[in-house]
């Protein structure tokens, strides 16, 4: 196995393993589940950028992308966490939250 081959494999594996997280984003019963999954995907995107940089042989450029992406990902997830922390029982949020478990129930049955 060459380094090139391993790099391609690692990138593909990262991408494929993001799919369960994407599933959690799509159906996660609460919005917090979705946010955790989004956070995971964001972190892994930064890693994926490093992998792509290795593949292209321009890692010195892609490292900057990865760092900036990790930073903005942190800001985003922190912002949403703080927002949800502030707005506890916002009236408009309740029906949305109620709807998702029901959907899941319907799918299970």
């Amino acid at each position, binding site marked *: 196995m060459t380094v090139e081959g391993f790099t391609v494999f690692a990138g593909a594996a990262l991408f494929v393993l993001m799919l369960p997280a994407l599933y959690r984003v799509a159906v996660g019963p609460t919005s917090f589940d979705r946010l955790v999954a989004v956070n995971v995907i964001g972190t892994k995107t930064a890693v994926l950028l490093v992998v792509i940089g290795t593949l292209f042989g321009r890692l010195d450029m892609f490292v900057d992308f990865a*760092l900036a992406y990790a930073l903005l990902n942190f*800001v985003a997830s922190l912002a949403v966490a703080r927002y949800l922390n502030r*707005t506890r029982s916002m009236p408009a949020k309740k029906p949305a939250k109620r709807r998702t478990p029901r959907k899941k129930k319907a799918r299970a049955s």
Partner: protein
Amino acid sequence: MKKIALAVTVLTGILLLYAAQDFPAWGDLQSPASASPVSKHFIADTGVDTEVPNMVTAVLADYRGFDTMFETVVIFIAGIAIIGILRRTGADADAPALKRENEIAAEPDLIVTNTVRLLVPVIQLFAFYVLAHGHVSPGGGFQGGVIMGASFILVALAWDLPKAMDRLSVDRAVMLAGVGILIYAGIGLFSMLLGGEFLDYAELSHVLPVSREMARYHAMLGVEIGVAFTVTAVMFAIYANLSTRGRLEGGL
């Protein structure tokens, strides 16, 4: 309504896919965009003209400098517009009605605040790196400005808005945004004074002890600094106004 929307969408999609057959294939070297003399010139001669290795920065700040300047003005105007739209005046000012129901005052979280306290200087240093190193690696005024603005937003997120406004108040941010545009336009006007055209950085070699190419190189850095000022200030102003619905107090 939904059916009409679906029909319109599908129709558009069919049209677009039909048109896509005539587009150049993926990675085609002979596609019109790649084969045009303009793009070839940008790739081949950027190094000769400006000595900047990063072509994107060179095209952004030099070849298309006029465009970027008014881009910066657009951001500035957007910031002012947001402040103007959300500002509470007259009878609106003391209307309390718009607090969300059961809104609680979020305590600053110990872990989050300590992490942010640790990270903010590093992030700002990274912003300066991205700004100053934008000629050689990916980066430049817009990116550096956004990262810088993010550091202020991070402070506002971890504690609350007033803590961030101690460092950069919205009024000062608007001023800073104006200063950024003035820096940009000032460099352009200065090169005009030196006998060139507006934003013709090469003329700056009359006052800088460098060659004409390196004058463009350094003037680009100055221009990017102006852009970074504006973007930093406007990003923070947008966040401050949108997150508090124009009240500029409290946390997110």
